[in-house]
């Protein structure tokens, strides 16, 4: 059901697809940690096409491929090379398609990964296109929740911070609603979730502006960064950012088994004293990116 499949948008995947990815990812964890060796993708080449830099995502895909014994070619920021000078994305993809077995693409324009998938014979994995989709991030976010609680259904998940521009929270909100989570949205009024995302969600989320409304009964806090650039007035920024930060004090009001997630990098929205609490899961979440990407690579290449 997976061989040759493009992973462009989370909505390309059924519940069965997601379950299968998670099942394979679980088996990949010892290999991702380096405890077990694998030659599963020996002889396969991954093309890592980063039309804009994103070091974390790129390294995560590279690690995934290398841990499975595969090889990598690629570039970051092609304007520095002569590769794409004046060339259409379609032409670049047609060329790379002939060199590789699977393509990972990160691009500043929305819809670029869908276009790449149309021109490539080999499977294409979207590693983020503009403000659009970033399905491997969404999958690792959901995987983190499932590994902690065993399920998503019925959990109270609060997405907080910048819900307007935050790339990762849009597809996550939609996916969580389809998986049966009780989604709550917490943000300043100027950074509310866009209406088109709310429309795509399966059930209407509850909307909040004060953290006190959700702090005591949320199971999963998904925190995103509020960027300074979004506020013309710096004092306004400091005030807003402060009221949506998770600190050692806020943590004390949380449920005993509540977890805190963050797509990283974090700045001030989670203070360092939270890292050592039992609630912090953001580093584990980042690690899960590797087994999730290993699972996706092995599945779309048809070796599993």
């Amino acid at each position, binding site marked *: 059901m997976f061989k040759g499949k493009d992973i462009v948008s989370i909505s390309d995947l059924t519940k069965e697809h997601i379950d299968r990815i998670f099942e394979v990812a679980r088996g990949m964890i010892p290999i991702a940690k380096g405890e077990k060796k694998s030659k599963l993708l020996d002889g396969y080449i991954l093309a890592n096409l980063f039309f804009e830099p994103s070091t974390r995502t790129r390294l995560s895909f590279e690690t995934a491929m290398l841990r499975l014994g595969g090889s990598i070619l690629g570039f970051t920021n092609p304007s520095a090379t002569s590769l794409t000078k004046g060339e*259409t994305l*379609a032409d670049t993809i047609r060329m790379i398609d002939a060199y590789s077995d699977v393509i990972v693409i990160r691009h500043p324009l*929305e*819809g670029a990964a869908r*276009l790449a998938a149309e021109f490539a014979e080999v499977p294409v994995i979207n590693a983020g*296109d503009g403000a659009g989709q970033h399905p491997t991030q969404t999958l690792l976010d959901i995987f983190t929740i499932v590994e902690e609680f065993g399920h998503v259904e019925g959990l109270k998940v609060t997405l907080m911070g910048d819900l307007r521009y935050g790339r990762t929270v849009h597809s996550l909100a939609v996916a969580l609603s389809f998986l049966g989570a009780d989604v709550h949205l917490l943000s300043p009024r100027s950074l509310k979730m866009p209406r088109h995302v709310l429309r795509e969600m399966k059930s209407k989320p509850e909307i909040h502006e004060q953290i006190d409304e959700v702090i005591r009964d949320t199971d999963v806090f998904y925190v995103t960064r509020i960027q300074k650039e979004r506020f013309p007035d710096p004092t306004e920024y400091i005030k807003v950012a402060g009221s949506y930060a998770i600190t050692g004090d806020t943590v004390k009001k949380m449920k005993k088994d509540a977890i805190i997630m963050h797509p990283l990098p974090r700045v001030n929205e989670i203070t360092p004293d939270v890292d050592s609490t039992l609630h912090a899961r953001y580093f584990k979440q980042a690690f899960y990116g590797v087994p999730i990407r290993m699972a996706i690579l092995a599945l779309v290449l048809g070796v599993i």
Partner: protein
Amino acid sequence: MEEKVLKVQKIKNGIVIDHIPCGMALKVLKILGIEGDVGSTLTIAMHVKSKHGWKDIVKIEDRYLDDREIDKIALIAPNATVNVVEDYKVIRKHRVKVPEIVKGIVKCMNPRCITNQREPIEPEFKTISIEPIVIKCKYCGREMSGEDIVENII
């Protein structure tokens, strides 16, 4: 009924587009690319009373429409009918239908959409609602409706 005869003068050969939502007649012409000197007689009747309220009617002499053009009309006048007239008689009547896939008719309004770059693809949308009409870009996922569609007709 006498009044109706006056407004809806018969044409010899051409098409009559009926049941256009009130005020949309000029936009229908824009979609069809009929602007300025077109070399045929145009008759536009706006704000005409009909069984179902007010409507616009457009008549174009000596001109026919292919399916692609008819699909375009459906995007702004989903209930329009296109009558093909030959020798003063209606020889065919089409009810326009909003296509499930809108391809190469509208461009995406999102300036950051890959379809607005120099790439060898046609913009493509999926119709996700008919009344009111909403289409969704296959590439960037942007939804468009109403005036946005009219303004982005290719």
